[in-house]
């Protein structure tokens, strides 16, 4: 099974995956990246109104094959009374 590397970014904090994970194919690696992103999101409560997370997948040859990004923008409501 080929190895894939999942590098993550949380704002400015980059984490390089040096060990990798064996997965059957690119499609499973893309799905794994999305699952990882969802898990990172669950684990982290943004300490402000902005959050930006990403997972970059690199295959064993070193080629980037996929990037999954998730962004939160909490904006003040223009309708403070909540009436529509």
């Amino acid at each position: 099974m080929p190895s894939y590397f999942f590098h993550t970014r949380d704002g400015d904090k980059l984490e390089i995956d040096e060990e990798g994970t064996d997965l059957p194919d690119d499609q499973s690696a893309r799905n794994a990246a999305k699952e990882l992103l969802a898990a990172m999101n669950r684990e982290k409560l943004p300490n402000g109104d902005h959050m930006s997370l990403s997972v970059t997948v690199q295959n064993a040859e070193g080629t980037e094959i996929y990037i999954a990004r998730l962004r939160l923008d909490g904006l003040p409501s223009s309708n403070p009374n909540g009436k529509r």
Partner: protein
Amino acid sequence: MDKQLYLERLVLKLETHIPLPPAERQKLLDLPLTLKRFEASQDIVREGEITKQCCLVAEGLVCRYKIVGDGARQILSLHLPGDIPDIHSLLIERMDHSLGTLTPAVVGLIPHDAVRALTRSSYRISEAFWRETLIEAAIYREWMVGIGRRSAPSRIAHLFCEFITKMTAIGLSDGVTCNLPLTQPEIADALGLSTVHMNKKLREIREAKLIRLRANRLTVLDWRGLCELADFDPDYLHLQPGVAKIESA
């Protein structure tokens, strides 16, 4: 004789929870046992099957599991030598989950009739089996708390704490290091995590020097730190005092 050794493991396991009088111990050692060998990742009993015998884990690591609609597996519990993970089949014959091996294993099959006769002749043994199922329920509650409420690193650390504690209680670990013959996907399936996520968090635990995990060998480097991360309190295992003292290497 192997069979005797395996039945002694059953007695040892029961006695991690409560001592048994010699006469009751002997009755357990006299149980009929048919040994069956399994490869790794093989089913022992499948969901939906009706069984007429109980499976004593004699050697190896066994799990209960369920497969959900999209094919994902949830490992429900881990079973070590001395466990009878399907003791409930005595009263509920149709399996509502599957029992399978994680490593090559030897399983001792004990006919229901023999276990039933034994439990009817000895209320102490009845109670011992009942207690086993109650403690298993306590372990399930702990796993439920973990999957529902603990962070990924905490879940992983908790599995390590529980595993080495149980291994030490049955004499298969010196309380510092033990075999942990689980692949990373298997650990992920037990904790409800994806393999990639689990790999990342496991790396953090290793880098924090709480454990060493090399070639399926788990070594505790910082027991207090590991328990703290895991939110681990061994009370729910209901072990006799002193049977599982864990120390840092």
